[in-house]
C-alpha cells in the first residue's frame, strides 16, 4: 500500500516538473504562478509469475494445471515438486474505471536440451473494474494454464514468453 502511494507521489512530482519546464520562461518574472496538470493514469505491476515448478515426466503424456487461483493439479503419471503459482498482475488507476485484460491463449516452451512443450493460458477475467476504497486499491487479474507434458519429456529448463495487456477503452 505504502509503496503504491509513494509511486503515485513520485509521478505527481514528475508531472509537476514537466509542467514547470513548460512555464519556466514565465517563472523568471517573480509573480509565483504554479501550474500543475493532473493526468489520469494506469499502472500495471506483476507480483508473481506463472510457475509450474519442477515436473518429472512419466511414460505416458499428461498435463499439469495451475488454475488462475493458483491451485495445482498434477496429472496421472507425473511427479510434481516445488511451489506452483499463477501469474498475478495488479492494476491501479481511476476509481471505478473499467479495464479490459487479456493476452495470448497459449505459449510454446523450448527446452535448454531440446524438445518443446505447449501450455494453454487461462485468464481470471476479461475485464476488471478498479475499486479504490477502504482496504482495496485498484484491481488485479491472474493467469493460470495447462501444460502438456510429453511421454518421457526430455529433461532440462524450458522457457517461453507470452503477451499480456491491460487495455483502456
Amino acid at each position, binding site marked *: *500500500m505504502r509503496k503504491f502511494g509513494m*509511486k503515485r507521489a513520485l*509521478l505527481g512530482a*514528475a*508531472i509537476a516538473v*514537466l509542467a514547470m519546464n513548460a512555464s519556466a520562461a514565465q517563472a523568471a518574472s517573480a509573480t509565483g504562478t504554479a501550474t500543475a496538470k493532473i*493526468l*489520469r*493514469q*494506469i*499502472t*500495471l*505491476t*506483476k*507480483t*508473481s*509469475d*506463472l*510457475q*509450474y515448478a*519442477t*515436473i*518429472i515426466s512419466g511414460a505416458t503424456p499428461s498435463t499439469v494445471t495451475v488454475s488462475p487461483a493458483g491451485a495445482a493439479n498434477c496429472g496421472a503419471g507425473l511427479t510434481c*515438486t*516445488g*511451489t506452483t*503459482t499463477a501469474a*498475478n*498482475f495488479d492494476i491501479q488507476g*481511476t476509481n*471505478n*474505471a*473499467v*479495464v*479490459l485484460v*487479456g*493476452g495470448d491463449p497459449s505459449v510454446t*516452451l523450448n*527446452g*535448454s536440451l531440446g524438445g518443446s512443450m505447449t501450455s494453454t493460458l487461462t485468464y481470471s*477475467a*476479461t*475485464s*476488471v473494474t478498479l475499486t479504490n476504497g477502504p482496504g482495496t486499491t485498484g484491481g488485479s487479474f491472474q*493467469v493460470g494454464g495447462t501444460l502438456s507434458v510429453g511421454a518421457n519429456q*526430455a529433461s*532440462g*529448463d*524450458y*522457457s*517461453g*514468453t*507470452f*503477451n*499480456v*495487456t*491491460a*487495455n*483502456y*477503452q
Partner: protein
Amino acid sequence: MFRFLKGFGLLTAAALGAAAPPALAAGDLLVAPTRVILDGSRGTEVVLNNIGSEPATYRISLEIKRMTAEGGLDEIAEENVTVAERAALDMIVFSPRRVTLPPNQPQVVRVGVRVPEGLPPGEYRAHMLFRSVPDAVPAEAVAAKSAGAGVSIALTPIYGITIPVIVRVGALGAEASIGEAWVSQGADGSAFNFDLSRTGGRSVYGDIEVTRPGVSEPLLVARGVAVYPEVGARKVSLRVPDELAAKLKGPVRIRYSEDREIGGGTIDEADRMVK
C-alpha cells in the same frame, strides 16, 4: 490489517519465486493519460514511467484492435487491417519508439497526427501499446544449470498497457441507447450486464451509473465504457460481488454520461427492470 497480510503473502510468494529460477528484470509501468483524442493538427504528450525496481527497456507501438459484440477488444494482425485502420496507423506519429528508463524515471512520448489531404471524414483509431522488452537470458546462467532429472519451467509474461489514440476528421455525431439489463451468474462470479447500442459517425465514451429509484447512493459506478464505430451495439458486462448482484435485481435507473472532463452530460438514461 487483512490487506497487510495479503501484501505480505504476495511478497513471500515473490521471494520464493525469486529464489527458484532467477526472475527476469521487472517491467512494471505507468501510463498517463489513459485516452488520447486528436482533432486537428495539434499533438499531445503521453507520460510513461518505470515504476519497477530495476531499469527496463520499453517499446512503444501502435496496433489495431476491434471491439466485439461482447465488449472485448480483439487484436488484429497488421496484414488484416482495413483501409481506414491502415490510414490510422499511417497518420499517427509518435516518438520515441523505444526507451530505457531507470526506476521512477518518466519519459514523455510525443504523439501527433498528419491527416492526409482528401481523407474522408470519420473517426480513425489505433491503440498505443507500451510494454517492456524482456532482457535476454544471460548465456552463462543457462549453461551453469545442470541437467537434472526433471523438467523445470520458466514462463515470462511480456506485459503492457494499451490506450486508444483517436483521430476525428470532420464534424461527427453519435448517439447511444441503453437496452435490456440483467444479472448473470458465471463460472468466474456474478456480473451485471446490459446492451448498449450506438449510431452515428463516431464512438461514444463515458461513465455508467446504476441507481435504485429513491436511493441517492448509486448501486454501481463504472467509468470509461466505450462503444466504438465498428460495432453498432455491445454488451457491457461488469463483474460484481454476489451480494451486489442480488441487490441489483429489480427496478433500476441506468445513466450513461459523458466523461466528467468534458462536462458529464447525459448520453442516455433508462429505467430497467433487472432480471
